């Protein structure tokens, strides 16, 4: 029996259900067609809900899906039916907030596609093979952001924290709009 909390997939779709970036960690969906079918049903089941202020949740086909929408982006995190829902929600929130920090509050499809490398790195830093690596948005964003710096330059904790604080402020403001 696998006791470690496990993530089945992380999905980022646009407002029509099309893929921006997806990552599957389970063999439950062996083919691309199976994956697309899953994304389609997740999308149709959730699109009419209002998942903007708080993360929403649904259960179908023995999966728990937590999700939240920001502008024209739909974020999803899927776990097995026995997974702790709140853990899944923590992963989702970490993902969304990290993206918010990295995109400086401009979270929408256009920005996401233009910075797809950042989104992919972000997903890579959150989950490894289904196991949660990190859920703290500041840490995730910090790890992704550090990559764009020069190899020689030592990481100054102070500056990056400041940069992130500013970004967070941006994010909060854009959410309150």
């Amino acid at each position: 029996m696998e006791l470690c909390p496990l993530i089945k997939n992380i999905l980022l779709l646009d407002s029509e259900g099309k893929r921006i970036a997806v990552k599957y960690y389970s063999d439950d969906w062996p083919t691309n067609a199976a994956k697309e079918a899953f994304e389609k049903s997740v999308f149709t089941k959730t699109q009419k809900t209002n998942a903007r202020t708080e993360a929403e949740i649904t259960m179908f086909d023995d999966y728990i899906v937590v999700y939240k929408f920001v502008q024209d982006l739909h974020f999803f995190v899927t776990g097995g039916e026995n997974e702790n829902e709140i853990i899944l929600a923590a992963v989702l929130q970490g993902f969304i907030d990290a993206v918010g920090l990295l995109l400086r509050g401009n979270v929408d499809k256009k920005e996401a596609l233009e910075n797809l490398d950042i989104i992919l790195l972000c997903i890579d830093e959150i989950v490894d093979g289904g196991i949660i690596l990190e859920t703290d948005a500041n840490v995730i964003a910090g790890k992704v952001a550090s990559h764009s710096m020069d190899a020689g330059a030592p990481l100054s904790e102070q500056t990056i924290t400041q940069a992130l604080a500013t970004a967070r402020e941006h994010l909060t403001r854009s959410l309150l709009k």
Partner: protein
Amino acid sequence: MAQPLVKKDDDRDDEVDYSPFMGIEKGAVLQEARVFNDPQLDPRRCSQVITKLLYLLNQGETFTKVEATEVFFAVTKLFQSKDIGLRRMVYVMIKELSPSADEVVIIVTSSLMKDMTSKTDMYRANAIRVLCRITDGTLLTQIERYLKQAIVDKNPVVASAALVSGIHLLQTNPEIVKRWSNEVQEAVQSRAALVQFHALGLLHQESHIPFSESFGIRQNDRLAVNKLVSSLTKGSVRSPLAQCLLIRYTSQVIRESANTQAGDRPFYDFLEGCLRHKAEMVIFEAARAITELNGVTSRELTPAITVLQLFLSSSKPVLRFAAVRTLNKVAMTHPMAVTNCNIDMESLISDQNRSIATLAITTLLKTGNESSVDRLMKQITNFMSDIADEFKIVVVEAIRSLCLKFPLKYRSLMNFLSNILREEGGFEYKKAIVDSIVILIRDIPEAKESGLLHLCEFIEDCEFTYLSSQILHFLGIEGPKTSDPSKYIRYIYNRVHLENATVRAAAVSTLAKFGAMVDTLKPRIFVLLRRCLFDNDDEVRDRATLYLNTLGGDGAVVQTGEDVKEFLFGSLDIPLVNLENSLKNYEPSEESFDINYVPKEIKTQPLAEKKAPGKKPTGFGAPPAASPSTVDAYERLLSSIPEFANFGKLFKSSAPVELTEAETEYAVNVVKHIFDGHVVFQYNCTNTIPEQLLENVTVVVDASEAEEFAEVVSKPLRSLPYDSPGQTFVAFEKPEGIPAVGKFSNMLRFIVKEVDPSTGEAEDYGVEDEYQLEELEVVAADYMLKVGVSNFRNAWESMGADCERVDEYGLGPRESLAEAVNAVIDLLGMQPCEASVVPNNSRSHTCLLSGVYIGNAKVLVRLQFGLDGPKDVAMKLAVRSEDEAVSDAIHEIVASG
């Protein structure tokens, strides 16, 4: 998958939906990837190309093997660049391509190993993750030293990378990962929150595999967790995730140690303490763990229910969902414990999130008392109109169980069902409603008449052929038994006018049933049936003709003969699949087809049943039909052997019993074939040694511990080459019709010849040899066929109490109720009917079994289990059959088992 994007942009002329990947094409990007080979690398450009490649893969585009290899080689060139951002993309790209071929892996291995020892933390962390993803056992031993170092690295990211990789590697190379336990122990004490979590994850799995799987030493495990818990509960667990894991770890140990320890539950205090943690995920994890404890008491439950109740009114949907889902499960076993939350639950019926609302309603239906039913139904009626079919089905099922719980309330519940039956809905939904009504009609006599009329009204306007014909069939069974059968005729005959051929044929059969069962209606039914003779469908006309001719009496008011009724409407006590197969195998000849030779055994599918506990017995109670192919195959095989030809009809074939351990030189299993006066052992042998050919293979059976059996035939296997299974048989005579039991010891005897593996030719000269096999037993269950009945209650009633035998037994201390129930089912070898899955935590259980005992005697068994004291199980066994001797025999089996 890149196409839709392109297409979309074509569709819309305005440039609103600008995408940097517009018009992207695999071929072009692969061309672009040539920049990776430039002597002067442009990191920015290369990063962009990798992003494009990743985009394509992400959209579902696939690379051919050649393309993937080419890209892979090109990407490895990028290790020359010192740019961190680019390196990061290279890592992701390599993982995404996940190269499999060894020679390909070697190319990156050296680069990755260099990164693994680099001074840059980010390089070390990522190189570890990539390397462990693509590595194999031999490479792993080379890098093991670095991984152990990484686990205790100062940098938490590096340590986590190594630990998480360790968790993955445990699946493939457990023996290596287990050697890291010192380092992992150290990492558990790390000050970095996530490192602790990952170390705990690895430590737990590591320590768990050897203890419980290989040796089954639970004690050690408990000591280990005891140490862990007491060392970690003193505030040194920093991450909520680690705390959740510790809770799961703890409840697993509680589960496994519950049997050995009496008195207070170990670690309960720890779980309860976690209910006061500051992180919601920990509180919830602990609450859920408490509710899932085996045999949880209401005192233990209370604090968990209290925190879940608080979650119910949270502003976060995720918390509400988690809480209501858990309470819903608790309500199945401890409805009283949940009633405190009823007010909060009722307000959740109007929750925006329909999943939450549905869970709330079904919980209320489980916990509600008789007086609240009406109010609840009113609320549900409003709710039903705006949820999807899948939720509605859940609600319908909950209402069905509620109605069975409070039969007095059938009127309002039946009304509710008939109302929703009239509304729009898909097939599955309608079927769930119809099934529910059928079950209520069967179980609540007062509900019968109104229920049948609801069904009649439904088929007047039903778009589903399947449901119409099923309802017609059901009407034919139940309708004639009502006070005024004639009122249903109109509904049935309407079908003959208005429906498709399948439904018309079903309607004709139903009419005939009324004619056969209700003598006063017969003349009128005959008039209707005669009209059906002009139908344009063959099947409809055929049925009408058959019924008109067999019912007889020329339409006068006469009684229909019992044998005619039995012929036309008696239940077929043969599984349909078996009949179908036998008919297919029947070759037209002088000998006519004999239905008595169709095997009655049903191969059970207990797994499928257990996997879908939500699927209650369906209304039309089809017995679990399964593949009879093995039964068939055995029968054909045996009948082809002349020595066994006069043994008569095969009563039962057992499942194969292994007589050798796995992976021995010769693999042998045995199938017991039971005939009326004989038993045939079929030994299936496989020779697993390529250098040997076995000849003249027999099994020497010592039946000294089976006094009533006498060996009559032994049929040797002439030759048993490598890896091609063969059979040898031994037949015994036993007293006719008597369920004789006994023990048999077996010895495989054969002549072994060496085979030259290069030519495959055997030597001429062989040596005689023997090989000891395990013992084999013929037990009482071998004389019992698993045959289900569709409706146990009806079968039980119609069997009558004449030959009933009731007695009580103490089964002594047992691991659990479920274990005791299964032991008795196995002992009897009978088919469990409805509701035979034992819910967790229950203190008592009733189990219904049916079967056919040797001599074709139907047997029904009602078992009532109860816990007597902490572990002692007591059982009341009631047996009904058509013969007292058989009923006694069943008691005998239990008494001696």
